[in-house]
């Protein structure tokens, strides 16, 4: 291979920090650091422990070493396969590493248990309050009073048109104070959010 048999112009031993400690003997004939052999040697990294055979026991099966990438969307999860699909039986034999599912931390707050405690009269009351005084009885206050979620208030009734108009003006007033940078950053954030649903 590309081993250059040139006499070096300058004493390599003057730069000892560049030299790997093991091969100082043969370095007089090398021209520079980045020879093929040395690059190759640097890349010779010991493989991960899970990759090779363990020394104590001899294995003769195929090693399954899942990559760190996400799986293809064309590979249907086992739960989504129809009951008569062959792959369901095939995958049940495969070793599953789902023992630690319960130990994994949740990614979002768990939604509270649904109570279904509001009656028809309560919903009527919510509608009446929100229509009568929309400034006082906001969604959050109504939710707090009736001990339900603001989402339920939104499902039960809608704000009056006057309140919507006021809220729109408030939003416009806030947005009018934004500069170009903040406005663009907000728009970019919306665009990025939309792209979540498109990508794989």
């Amino acid at each position, binding site marked *: 291979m590309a081993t250059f048999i040139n006499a070096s112009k300058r004493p390599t031993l003057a730069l000892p920090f560049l030299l790997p400690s093991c091969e100082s003997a043969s370095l007089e004939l090398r021209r520079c650091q980045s020879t093929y052999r040395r690059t190759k040697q640097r890349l010779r990294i010991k493989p991960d422990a899970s990759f090779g055979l363990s020394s104590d026991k001899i294995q003769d099966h195929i090693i399954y070493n899942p990559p760190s990438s996400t799986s293809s969307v064309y590979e249907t*999860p086992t*739960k989504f396969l*129809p009951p008569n699909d062959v792959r369901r039986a095939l995958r049940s034999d495969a070793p599953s590493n*789902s023992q630690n*599912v319960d130990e994994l931390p949740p*990614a979002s707050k768990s939604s509270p248990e649904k109570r279904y405690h509001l009656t028809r009269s309560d919903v009527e009351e919510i509608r009446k309050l929100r229509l009568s005084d929309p400034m006082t009885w906001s969604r959050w206050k109504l939710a707090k009073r009736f001990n339900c979620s603001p989402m339920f208030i939104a499902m039960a009734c809608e704000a009056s048109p006057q309140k919507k108009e006021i809220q729109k003006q408030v939003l416009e007033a806030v947005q009018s104070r934004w500069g170009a940078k903040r406005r663009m950053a907000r728009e970019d954030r919306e665009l990025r959010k939309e792209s*979540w649903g498109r990508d794989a």
Partner: protein
Amino acid sequence: MKRLQLQRWSSSVLSSRARTGGRLQRHLYSSNRFQSTASNPLPSESDLAGEQSTASSGSTPFLKFTKRQLPSPPVQAARESAKLAALHARLYLPSRLPLETLARCLVDASADPDPQFNNTSLALLGNDLLSNYISEHIVCTYPRLPLTVIFAAVYAYIGPKTLAAMVREWGVEHAAFPGGEVDPGLLQFKRVAPGTDISAEPIRGTTRPNEDQTTWRRSITSSVVYDNEYGDPVMAPKPPADPSGSSPQPPVTAEQASCSLVRAVMGAIYLHAGRLAAKRFFEQHILSRHLNLSELFNFSQPVRDLARLCARENYEQPVAKIISETGRKSRHPVFVVGIYSGKDKLGEGVGGSLVEARSRAAVAALKGWYLYSPLEVRVPSSTEEPGAAPWKPVYVDLGEVIV
């Protein structure tokens, strides 16, 4: 069941210029070609009778000169065109498809309004074949796809843009202006004037009722009934103004003319060489194109949709769990979130925030549901082969998640 005699059909359905002949002779004796886009008025019967005697004594140079009178090349020119023979060989078309029919496939209705000499009838048949084959392929291969994705996939496979790209890849050149003296190996159509805004006027005259109500919601399910195979509005058939059908047609774009060419070639192969050859042509030219179906999806609320799906299918409610994370306090954290239903992982997503990773994981789970494909895919048209196994019903899904 006995197979249909397609060869016999083709002689009755197709009428080539060689057999009719009368129209060609009529055109030979009319005057010089006008520099107008409208087709020439046909001479009356008395003119024809009067000129018949002078025509019989006509010489070859006169005949060559009056070729310019025809709206599209005569049938005899097909055998002399090098371009046409090259196209036939390049596409590896069956030898039972004659060059004359291939020449007719290249004549659009805007070039020659006579339905006996343009490719309208062939394109109609070819379009039906193409949409039948591609829709059965998509529906049988991916039985759970939502309707919008099916429409998008059909459009991607046999839509006008794809067919125009195919014609470019085939190396078919466009004639500058159609006419009898043009090489029959060129695609002949009358072009729209440059600068014309094609999509300016709203579409009127569709088969859909209450089409003037633009604010009304048009559901995707109604597209199955009213719209074409891409979910686009389809125009209602208009009664032809001229009973012979030879009224001048409006000019078309190069894309529309390319579409009719591919469809007409498909129809011509079906008529001349049979169903097997048509299916082979479809597989080699349409199905061989790569389409990544997973890119056609666009979810607006993937987490909610997945929850509805699991509730519908009686699975445990999906729960998002952090599989791994790095740099939570840094500027660029990376979270790997998996969505689990009970013990089973439905999907996995990577994102810069927990919300993003959860959303992407839900998208992956939904795509995993919708892109389910059975192991042995068989389409209904495969039972048409002689000695084919009887048809077994394919997997039919409940349908997409409706929130």
